[in-house]
């Protein structure tokens, strides 16, 4: 029987209250939302928090809305709501691509975007999704808010920029003209973690790639930002050949390890193929807006 080690539990009734509790309890306290990453880790003693602060009642952190030139997602927004969101499907279709293959529908009823990003598992899909679309994370502490770009959010495996007495409250997705995006994942069976996954977003203006974001899941110790491939694509016209080159860079710049999901050369190959596919679909989704 798998049961977490003993801990103290409290329910937050406000964001400020949750932060005050984190501050009071120190590094042995953890926020729990959906619990579908944290509880399994606690059962295996990979995480042993002494206090859990349940934020499920903070429904003010559950929303997806367009505001000005951004789409805002509350940290407590569940996977099922990301999957069904028409706002995201319109502006950032890679969310629906990813949510269709994140765990299973029952798990998606509980898991949250904030939990996924804060778990910072290298194989987690939303981290690469948010990296590709150049999302920003809003982190709140007792002294106020700070906004962190995704490349500075993930510091290492299971480590994020969120401090002990801080709470991730919102994800901001900047809206720019000519955008298209896609997420491609290969998994062993329905609901499994990725063998490899690639997220891509392109912004095509006047027939050329004004900007691009590419990130990989499951093929390194953390989410991998393919900055070298992004540099290659910027300012060029989208083409199969160009995206194939980006795929080659992905194969080179990832650093997978061999495990039950496959050997290193297979994963490198897959990272390349999926990067190219994601870019092709992202561009195909961007171009109709251009015309």
């Amino acid at each position, binding site marked *: 029987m798998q049961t977490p080690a*003993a801990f103290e539990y409290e329910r937050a009734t406000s964001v400020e209250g949750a932060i005050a509790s984190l501050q009071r309890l120190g590094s042995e306290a953890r926020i729990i939302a959906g619990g579908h990453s944290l*509880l399994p880790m606690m059962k295996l003693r990979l995480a042993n928090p002494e206090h859990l602060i349940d934020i499920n009642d903070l429904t003010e952190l559950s929303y997806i809305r367009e505001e000005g030139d951004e789409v805002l997602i509350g940290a407590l927004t569940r996977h099922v709501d990301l999957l069904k969101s028409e706002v995201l499907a319109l502006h950032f279709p890679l969310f629906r691509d990813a949510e269709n293959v994140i765990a*299973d529908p029952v798990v998606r009823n509980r898991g949250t975007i904030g939990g996924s990003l804060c778990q910072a598992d290298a194989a987690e899909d939303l981290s690469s999704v948010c990296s590709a679309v150049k999302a920003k994370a809003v982190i709140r502490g007792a002294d106020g808010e700070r906004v962190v770009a995704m490349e500075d959010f993930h510091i290492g495996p299971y480590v994020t920029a969120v401090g002990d007495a801080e709470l991730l409250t919102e994800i901001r997705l900047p809206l720019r003209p000519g955008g298209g995006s896609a997420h491609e994942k290969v998994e062993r069976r329905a609901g499994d973690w990725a063998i490899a996954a690639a997220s891509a977003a392109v912004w095509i203006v006047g027939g050329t790639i004004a900007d691009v974001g590419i990130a990989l899941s499951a093929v390194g110790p953390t989410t991998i930002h393919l900055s070298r491939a992004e540099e290659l694509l910027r300012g060029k016209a989208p083409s199969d050949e160009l995206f194939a080159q980006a795929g080659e860079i992905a194969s080179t710049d990832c650093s997978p390890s061999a495990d039950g999901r496959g050997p290193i050369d297979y994963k490198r190959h897959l990272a390349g193929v999926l990067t190219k596919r994601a870019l092709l679909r992202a561009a195909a989704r961007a171009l109709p807006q251009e015309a």
Partner: protein
Amino acid sequence: MLVSISVNGEQVSREIEPRQLLVHFIRETPGLTGTHWGCDTSNCGACVVQMDGAPVKSCTILAAMCEGHEIRTVESLEVDGLLDPIQMGFHETHALQCGFCTPGMLMTTRALLDENPNPTDHEIRTAISGAICRCTGYKNIVSAVRWAAEYEASAKQEV
């Protein structure tokens, strides 16, 4: 800590450790052992119950997190000896052999039909993709959900 949860419409209160999982709370306190405790890792789906109408895996939710929410278990499906159409469908199409996965399958597919009364085979398969059956294969389970969907559609017409 004292936790009070609505299980099948009845308020169940008990002093528990905060680490108690919902699946154990349900099985031990009101003794509703219809909810099965399977893989313990949110993979198999045998422990699925409904929380405010949505199917959830009760092995990966703390009982303490459920206070103030409505939990429904497989025991709530049958009313006064009358089976729920989804249970009738499983019976009619032989959608179980050992029955271990059945409670989770029933609660998952009941929620599917509540949201989508006429699902395609693909939608049914997607809905149960987080539930594992090691006996029947999934074909008869998909047939059972179709059977229940059609039964409910024709029952509605008669009214």
